[in-house]
């Protein structure tokens, strides 16, 4: 029996993974400020892990979350507290903290069974505010709004000291996340998620328990967000409630929108695109604009992100990943490329 996977081009995947791990060496050879670029890529990597999880929830299962910064924060604070105050080894915290964050996902998943669309968005947003207040209130462990110093990641005797080391840690996480998420969405689990998104009736009629699978989706999404949080806490060495703003949750949504809702690679591309834009393009643009008028960095950021989201929704609703698919088809058919196909 011929299977769909026989002719899939799996060859490119190891090449891509190798490229990811060779990139720092390339950057080092090319520029002296490679450490800054690595720092930016590390942030992108952490957000990639989170947006892949968010995409499983919002893109695949169709449950919108405006509170993902809260899961991110829970993962970060849990790991910081467990490792630095509880004496848990980092290796274990890397597993336990995300799982505990997943349990918080289940807690917010309960109301989600009865809420839809905008209302769910508001409920998760409220969850974000609650978590932020709770972190400030639990001063004893979290130092309140002063922020918390966090130790470096330490795995089997090796300490990740700088952005160079962290890059390899974070991108190992990214590769793992992407592989796991891809496997999930192509299995029974992913099909159930998509069926719930597109037709709850059909899903129930084939025997899918809506409540169960919605909860699983929240749990998995929470685990990924928690994992991203753990990496964030230990690689940035300092966390405070200011990092985990409602605005961050909105940026996560922008990332999956820009990348392409409902595709794992899309979530990765979106996170990369937005972080590069934020850290590399916007400062340049701001400097240029500064020659005419006085501006604040934050204003420009909001303006540009808003504009980008707007433009993507109107002109490229399938996101960057959809754009890539179009380009690929275009080149495959190259001499025969009726432009109509792409209108």
């Amino acid at each position, binding site marked *: 029996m011929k299977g*769909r996977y026989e002719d899939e081009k799996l060859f490119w995947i190891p090449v891509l993974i190798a490229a990811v791990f060779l990139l720092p060496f390339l950057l080092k050879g090319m520029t002296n400020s490679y450490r800054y670029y690595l720092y930016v890529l590390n942030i992108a990597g952490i957000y990639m892990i989170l947006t892949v999880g968010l995409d499983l929830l919002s893109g695949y299962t169709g449950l919108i979350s405006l509170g993902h910064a809260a899961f991110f924060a829970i993962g970060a604070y849990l790991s910081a507290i467990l490792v630095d105050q509880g004496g848990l080894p980092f290796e274990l915290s890397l597993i336990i903290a995300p799982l505990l964050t997943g349990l918080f996902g289940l807690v917010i998943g309960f109301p989600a069974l009865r809420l839809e669309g905008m209302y769910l968005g508001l409920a998760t947003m409220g969850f974000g505010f609650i978590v932020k207040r709770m972190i400030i209130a639990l001063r004893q462990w979290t130092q309140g709004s002063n922020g918390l110093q966090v130790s470096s990641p330490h795995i089997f005797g090796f300490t990740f000291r700088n952005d160079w080391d962290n890059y390899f840690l974070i991108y190992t996480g990214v590769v793992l996340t992407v592989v796991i998420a891809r496997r999930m969405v192509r299995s029974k*689990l992913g099909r159930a998620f*998509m*069926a719930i998104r597109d*037709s709850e009736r*059909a899903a*129930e*009629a*084939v025997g899918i328990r809506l409540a169960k699978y919605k909860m699983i989706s929240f749990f998995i999404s929470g685990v990924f967000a928690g994992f991203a949080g753990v990496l964030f806490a230990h690689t940035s060495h300092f966390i405070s409630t200011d990092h985990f703003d409602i605005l961050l949750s909105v940026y996560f949504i922008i990332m999956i929108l820009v990348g392409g809702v409902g595709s794992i690679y899309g979530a990765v591309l979106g996170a990369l695109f937005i972080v590069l834009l934020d850290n590399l393009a916007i400062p340049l643009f701001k400097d240029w604009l500064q020659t005419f008028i006085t501006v604040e960095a934050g204003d420009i950021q909001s303006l540009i992100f808003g504009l980008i989201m707007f433009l993507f929704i109107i002109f490229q609703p399938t996101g960057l990943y959809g754009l890539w698919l179009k380009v690929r088809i275009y080149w495959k058919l190259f001499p025969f490329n009726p432009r109509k196909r792409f209108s």
Partner: protein
Amino acid sequence: MPDLLIDNLHIHFDGVIALDDVSLTVKSGEIFSLIGPNGSGKSTLFNCINGFNRPRKGAIRFGGINLLRKKTHEIPLLGIARTFQNLQNVPYMTVLDNVLLGAHLRISKRDTVKRWLSRKQRVAEEALALEIMDLLGIANFERKYLLGQPFGIRKLVEIARALVSRPKLILLDEPAAGMNDQETIEIAKIITEIRNELGITVLVVEHDMRLVMRISDRICVLDSGKVITIGKPDEVKQHPEVVKVFLGEGTDA
């Protein structure tokens, strides 16, 4: 294989009586058609069997189990699958995945975990669907996204999704609605194949009288939630009240 027994089923929505003491039996291995004008309660009856609607009175028994006590997602577990009149499939999934969706209960947790690790398991999982897709003649479409497929294909995908769960009883809600003559003939062939080759009992709601008369073993005529008559196609065709309420005068379908 068990029979489907519907016993004094009664359901109303805010004063509109959708089903009024409906009793009928679908025997194992039979192609049983439900016909009637719009709003006569055919789809409501399907929704009751399927658990989307909860009747106030009566019982639906399948293999000694009262379906009204079961939750919607437990119905397929008993071997009852259905299709929808308004297509309910997932546009951003391939045709193959849409069909595999129906195999949800056949794929165990262990198989899913195995599938994450081994390619062989993936191919085995796909074989479940390809078998049925071959039968319906849509195997060529396996890798295509459902979005953008013609209506006829989406309709067949809907039927394939129901079949892949290996049901004992399949409920087809207007399988030929919106199909052209050629496709209707194809559908008739498929429905007979479902019964003859797979041995599945078929309960079908349909408006196309030629199709109904050709394939059915027995027909039930509903009007305003009441059963008018149940019988063989020829008997039903002759029934005076049926001619009046449904077929209309001068129709020799």
